[in-house]
């Protein structure tokens, strides 16, 4: 119900951001949440729609019961709001920080006003829950005696593990890196999602609930998956879509050209105290950095580069600049491809669009010094180079952030000879792979996507695994049959 006229009475208020000068001095999160009273007022803006689009296929992938927790927040019933939120979303502390919030672009109020600040509300609920101690370990009351191995500890793997553990199964989560979290740990910059304060906080909680974590375990490479199959009743593969798109142009072999993930994971690890040898270290300090690719990953490279003290940061993009507002071909409530300056970009990057990289330029020692570029114009799905617009972009460090093609093929996929689809993702029926007892969820199954989709995949997959193990209807919540708190 909310406040009937709340949407007319209150304007949207966002979290405030620290100034650029201030925030680029460190790697910490730099948003200041609103006060509890302000949040409650924001909750009142929800119209409690008869058909809440935030909660549809255009909106929240996990199907958060948004109108309900908005109302609960408005009424100051934070603990109930917390339970509502947790009934559909395993990791609101992640999504409350990094989700692009399709719920907000689908919000009915957003049709002709500014949408309800759902993401901030989500953030506030879960952080309050931690603060108040409502968020505490809840190990299962009994154990089924079944065990499950989950390979890959990204958000999908964490969600699967979290859910299956609730159902009483013994879950071991395997991670090839030394810390748990996958992209959440290694990809997303610390200033957007704090590794210790947020990710590790959750990992610790899960450990207390009984989940075992095995790190530095590259399954299918160092440890055979057959071993896991032998020791467990089911295996779930949530290894992500780790295969980056390359840019195979002339002089690609020059030094100083890296995939974004290499750069980002080092950067994040460094924040957590890890150090790298000079040979391996990728640093932007004092360099002219060019980021190729205009997506979120690219932006993350920009933000880290600036914090590392790059001399300049340029981000180029093959595509034209998106329009500033919705156009007729991206109507509400679909997710709009509108241009939005990311916080990192706002910190001082040069952006350029319709730019094609023709070749890298390297000096005698094999180091990259620049990129030969040309401007292009788009015609339908193809483009033409514009003659005479060739130019050279100076670069000491080039970061390739052009997306991911699918899962790595030479680990579990190879070992189990898993069937894959035409996009090289693991092929499943439901979440079951071609090998009995082996399931897959997340980016390794559906391809590169959002954290929130990974959580969704993990939850749904867990239900299927539970039913596979117990041969009866699962009592776990999922999208098709969940029960929520009032």
């Amino acid at each position, binding site marked *: *119900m909310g406040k*009937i*006229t709340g*949407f*007319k009475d209150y304007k949207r208020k966002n979290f405030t951001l620290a100034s650029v000068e201030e925030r680029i001095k460190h790697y910490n999160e730099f948003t200041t949440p609103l006060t509890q009273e302000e949040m409650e007022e924001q909750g009142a803006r929800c*119209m*409690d*729609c*008869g*058909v*809440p*689009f935030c*909660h*549809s*296929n*255009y*909106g929240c992938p996990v*199907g958060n*019961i948004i*109108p*309900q927790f908005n109302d609960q927040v408005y*009424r100051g*019933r934070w603990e*109930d709001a917390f*339970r509502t939120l*947790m*009934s559909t979303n395993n990791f609101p502390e992640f999504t409350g920080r990094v989700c692009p919030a399709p719920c907000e672009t*689908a919000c*009915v*109020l957003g*049709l*002709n*006003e500014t949408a309800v600040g759902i993401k901030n509300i989500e953030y506030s609920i879960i952080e309050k829950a931690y603060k108040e101690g409502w968020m505490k370990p*809840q190990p*299962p*009351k*009994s154990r089924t005696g079944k065990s499950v191995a989950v390979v890959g500890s990204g958000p999908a793997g964490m969600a699967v593990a979290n859910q299956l553990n*609730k*159902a*009483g199964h013994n879950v071991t989560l395997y991670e090839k890196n030394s810390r748990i979290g996958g992209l959440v740990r290694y990809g997303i910059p610390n200033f957007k999602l704090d590794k210790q304060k947020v990710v590790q906080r959750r990992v610790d909680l899960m450990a207390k609930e009984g989940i075992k974590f095995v790190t530095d375990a590259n399954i299918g490479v160092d440890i055979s998956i057959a071993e896991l199959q032998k020791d467990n009743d089911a295996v779930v593969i949530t290894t992500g879509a780790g295969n980056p798109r390359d840019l195979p142009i002339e002089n690609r072999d020059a030094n100083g050209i890296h995939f974004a993930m290499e750069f980002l994971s080092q950067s994040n690890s460094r924040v957590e105290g890890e150090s790298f040898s000079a040979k391996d270290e990728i640093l932007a300090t004092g360099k002219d950095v060019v980021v190729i690719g205009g997506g979120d990953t690219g932006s993350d490279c920009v933000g880290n580069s600036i914090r590392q003290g790059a001399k300049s940061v340029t981000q180029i993009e093959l595509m034209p600049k998106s329009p500033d507002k919705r156009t*007729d071909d991206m*109507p509400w*409530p*679909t997710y709009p491809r509108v241009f939005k300056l990311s916080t990192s970009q706002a910190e001082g990057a040069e952006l350029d669009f319709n730019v094609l990289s023709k070749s890298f330029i390297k000096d005698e020692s094999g180091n990259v010094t620049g990129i030969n570029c040309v401007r292009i114009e788009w015609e339908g799905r193809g483009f033409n180079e514009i003659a005479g617009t060739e130019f050279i972009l100076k670069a000491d460090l080039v970061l390739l952030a052009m997306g991911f093609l699918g899962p790595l093929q030479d680990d579990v996929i190879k070992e189990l000879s898993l069937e894959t689809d035409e996009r090289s993702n693991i092929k499943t029926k439901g979440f079951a792979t071609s090998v009995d007892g082996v399931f897959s969820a997340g980016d390794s199954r559906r391809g590169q996507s959002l954290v929130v989709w990974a959580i969704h995949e993990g939850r749904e997959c867990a239900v299927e695994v539970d039913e596979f193990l117990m041969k009866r209807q699962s*009592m*776990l*919540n999922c*999208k*098709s*049959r*969940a*029960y*929520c*708190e*009032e």
Partner: protein
Amino acid sequence: MKLECYPCKEGLYDPEFEHDACGVGFVAHLKGEQSHNIVAKGLELLANLEHRGAVGAEKNSGDGAGILTQMPDSFMRRVAKEASNIELPPFGEYGVGVVFVPRDPDAYSETQSIVEQCIEELGQECLGWRRVPTINNSLGESVRATEPIVKQVFVKKADDIDTDAFERKLFVIRKYAQARVTASPIRGTGYFYMPSMSHKTISYKGQLITEQLPLYFPDLGDEDYESAIALVHSRFSTNTFPSWPLAQPFRYIAHNGEINTLRGNINWMKARQSLLHSNLFTKDELDKIYPFLINEAKGSDSSVLDNVIELLTLAGRKLPHVMTMMIPEAWRDDEMSEDRRAFYEYHATFMEPWDGPASVAFTDGKVVGATLDRNGLRPSRYFLTKDDILVMASEQGALEFPAEDIVLKGRLQPGKMFLADLEEGRIIPDEELKEQMATAYPYKEWVANQKINLDDLPMNEEPWQPNDETVKQRQKCYGYTVEDLKTVITPMANDAYEATGSMGNDASLAVLSHHSINLYNYFHQLFAQVTNPPIDPIREELVMSLTSYIGSQGNLFQEVDEDRNFIKLSTPILDNRQIARLKGIDKFNFKTKSISILFDAKKEGDMKDAIERVKDEVSRAVADGYAVIILSTRGVSELLAPIPTLLATSAVHQHLIAEGTRTSCGLVIESAEPREIHHFATLIGFGANAINPFLAFETIEDMRTKKLIREDLTQDEAVSNYITAVGKGIFKIMSKMGISTIRSYTGAQIFEAVGLGEKLVEKYFKGTPSRIAGIEIDTLEKETLMCHSLAYPKDIVESNGLGVGGQYAYRQRGENHLLSPENIFLLQQATKNGSYETFKQYTKTVDSVNDDFITLRGLLDFRGLNPIPIDEVEPVEGIMKRFATGAMSYGSISKEAHETLAIAMNSIGAKSNTGEGGEDSARFGTNKNSKIKQVASGRFGVTANYLVNAEELQIKLAQGAKPGEGGQLPGHKVDEVIGATRHSTPGVGLISPPPHHDIYSIEDLKQLIHDLKNANVNARINTKLVSEVGVGTIAAGVAKAYSDVILISGFDGGTGASPQTSIKHAGLPWELGLSETHQTLVKNGLRGRITLQTDGQLRSGRDVAIATLLGAEEWGIATSALIVEGCIMMRKCHLNTCPVGIATQDKDLRAKYTGKPEHVVNFVRFLATELREVMAELGFRTINEMVGRVDKLKAREGVKHWKAKHLHLEKLLYRMYVREEDSKYKTMTQNHGIEDALDNELIKTMRDAIDNKTPIKTEIRLRNINRTVGTMLSAEMTRKYGEEGLPDDTIYIKANGTGGQSFGAFVNSGITFEIEGDANDYFGKGLCGGKLILYPPVNSTFEANETVILGNVAFYGATSGEAYIYGLAGERFCVRNSGANVVVGAVGDHGCEYMTGGRVVVLGEIGKNFGAGMSGGIAYIYDKDDNLSQRINGGMVDLDKIETIADEDEVRGMIENYVKYTGSKEGDEILENWESSKSKFIKVMPRDYKRVLQNQAEEK
């Protein structure tokens, strides 16, 4: 096989649902002088009531007419001798039975010999038979086909009995003979029937039209056929099937009305059967009566009523006493004596009211009288001449006498009785009569001794203490959802109101849901439409009652049962303390027994066995003398699951009825299950006397502690609010069926089931219609266990709360909806971009959502494909013209949204609908003019100008979202423009009454249709009905009432604000209603007279195609049209906060409106385009050839859905045989009889006035058969001059005589009627500027202001103009007046109801409930003796004095005019003594109106 003369069930048609209504009246000689004159006058009266009857498909086939007279002794004596050489014994010693003998020779002799045997067996002597001469050449073919042979049998009284005993013997003979014949296997005996058998009275009747009666029975014309009483009746039935027996009068009564609670009354009578014993009947005689105690083979409600009246009268009570007991007046009345209240209360404990609109004329040959139900919804007028001729009839003027001969005129008032005792030779006033009855026995003492007030009992048991620990678990066990808490319970506990919602229902039917749905939701509430009116439980609360009694009822025949006790309950909902009191009762003769209604959750199939165990246990308890049986769900656990409470309740109730012990005990329900108002209504409707919903109370407690409901309330207050809300809700549900008291609602089963299997219904819900079969008890058990297993899971793996619901708002994981976010988006994109491709994507989602089975049509598939090239199908432009947008008022939606629809529909030759809010006259004649102008109960802005600017006039009898209810437009939605359009004051809320106050019955509808046709002869008249069982037979009646179009709306449609209970639970899907209507019209040969239209969540070309195949040739769209305009289904229309500027009047929000006419046009074009594709596939070139082709539909194959797979759709898809000469789509125009109207002459006379504004004065003669006088004249003039009309008195008509119904309806400015005489109902209806003057004939002798001069419901919906009435007007004077200024002598009950404007001055008495629902205008009442203020309903008005000069001038000016026009001497006196008289005026001032006027004054 035996042939029955009554039509059989066929397809969805079921004769059980036929209705009738009628003209009724009598002529009597007050001194009991017998003469042929009385008979002749009776027949004349009957002929003049012809317009109240109906004719069927054939002009000369009527629905029935008849006459009941005293035994014409000398006539009988002569004809018995002449015909059969029988010498009759002296009067009183012979009886005459009138017998319809079958024509089939075998049946003929069989039935005659049975009658003779029965006479002998009862110890009387059969003297012989006479064949009654009949002349059938005037009869229509269909009537002649079933014409019986009419005979009279003469019975001689045995010597050893007196005449009263003889009369009883004759009664037993008749019942017994009927039973014996019915049991006979001989073919044709079904035609046997005995209209009467008595020594005192005799009836002549048949399936005739009124004027055929004397032609058919020459007996009636014989001069020696003499009687002092002639009771006559003309029937208007909703069918045209031969049913000679159902013609009236019956043996004691002629009934105009409808018994709404019939099913319950019949059940209760059956239940009493075993307790009946009498010293006037032997056991053997009672056994002979039983088979036909109350229900002679398929009788009508009236015949059943007659049967019970007859039984109770013969068993020893006087006829007026019996009438009073069965149709009691409302007795919670402070003006009533204690004795009288005790009389009613005493009888209330063992006889529930036979509830419904009823004017019943009755006679036993010695007294003659009439009584009116408590609501007074049927007109009855009477007068007495100086020659002692007493005439009572449905209307005034049906018999004409010179004015100077009339000594007394009156009307029957609500709940009152009018009785003439011909032996005493006088009229006994109601007051005297009732006091006589009330003091005949010491009822007050009996009540005092026997009554136990529940709240006076000691608390011997601990009340149930809430258990916080298990609340949630138990909530889950009963399927509680978050919505139950938030949407259902919260507003009830907080504010004692049920929640309001908007935009109809588009969620799955219960039987199509994937979820476990409470059994209650399979039952849909039925409601009154056309044949009887719904009532207003708020504004007319004085007739409503929730009081009930539990305990044994005892022997109905016995006047007093000393051993009996009964407990009085003031509401059927018991709180925890009350049920503890009840359980702990240990004194008096009371014992209560709790019986658990749980079953073994682990044992498959145990639910069924458990019900049998419960039944046995109950039987034993009743046998052991327990007078209160409590069915309890306490003790639910992991092992024990609850039987659905409704199932257990109905099973036990019906079991006890069958056992004949139901009236020996009260049935109380202690259950955790019910929480919604609908739940309680169904429990009561299926037999529960009282309910303790303890989990609902615990939930409230739980929510209080969680601060989910108001913190300032104590638990007791919250519970009390909740109980109040349930009470109000039950009132609303009862009232939409026209039922006033819970005692008659209990067990009345006024529901239709959708999706329940035959066996389940037959075994546990017998008598409830369930037409597409469905789930049986095993599936029900599964549903129950689904919830149970969630409450008691094998293991709890994560915190697991209540379900999301998704019934009221869309929710993932909740109920499926037709409108999902996805298809709302696609539809908007398709129509905005003009992309048919996107539209196809949309319809794919809508139709594939149908794979999830939300609607019945989702279960249908096309068959018999016969593709033709699409070019051969009629063009899309033609098809588009068949679309209309639904009725959405300007006011409920914004100007922008409203006009967009009009522009769009006009541009393609389709039609938009004004809705009930009127229309700004600036739109008339432009492309914004809505072609369909709606006429709803509020009559907002319904003026002559509005009506002439229509192409179609739609009478809204019901609307899908809330059938049987009126609407309410909150003050904040009434801005300047809307106020002007609705002829009301901005800022003042508006109420639409539940009924049209000019439609209480089918013949009234016929009258309104006639009125509207007169108001605009070029317009089609459309009658809007809502789907429910029996709507087909109603539609047949509507067709016979000359409607041109019938719209069948689905229950799920509707965009307006409605109570959630109504949105969800009232009415049925259009598929059922449409198909039933088409089938019934075809069966009656009426289909060709009607254009059939349907609407209700139509979404795609497929939906439209299915509607066409089921019988509709036109279609309406509303919700989807709004979606196209930008609606995103906020479902907040009622809050004025629509964020897209559609359903709001907020300026800022309206600015956000983005809809365009082109989008709507695209939508209609797409629908038509898709429909054409289906047509091409099925091989139809035109819509007309497609209409009703159900053979092209089949039930979808391979349905696996666990519930839906049990449905059987054969009846829905039944193809009714069409006779060659009949059409199955509209081909004929209705004959509205306009050419006979008096106005044709008036228009000629006034031609010069109309054309050239030349003032003309004329004088005419007036009779009651001149209906709707002045309306066509007004329309003719209005076409030329619009709203403004002509200068005052340009057209001046002096009329002498009696004005027929609707005199002066919709008369515009410049027209004046001056009537010397009197007038009937609906006088000045919709008056819009004209002037009406009415005064008694100058030579009349009666006291003007105490004599009725004007019928009921005068000036209904008047918008302006003035009127002066010298005399007493009937009930509901100036109801919904919004601007006329009227002065009147005196008025009946409910004066100025729902008034929103204008001035009314009353110079004499007022009836009860004056000013109810009055939100505007002012009434001044001259309270000479300072005793009238208590009759004013203070709910919305303040009582002031005349204080300002302006007030004084206003009142005085009006009275001066009054005296000038009517010569009123009372008015003259008041003016003479103005200074002293002015202080005696009560100024009745609506509070809202006062506030707004004050604000306006301050602003100035």
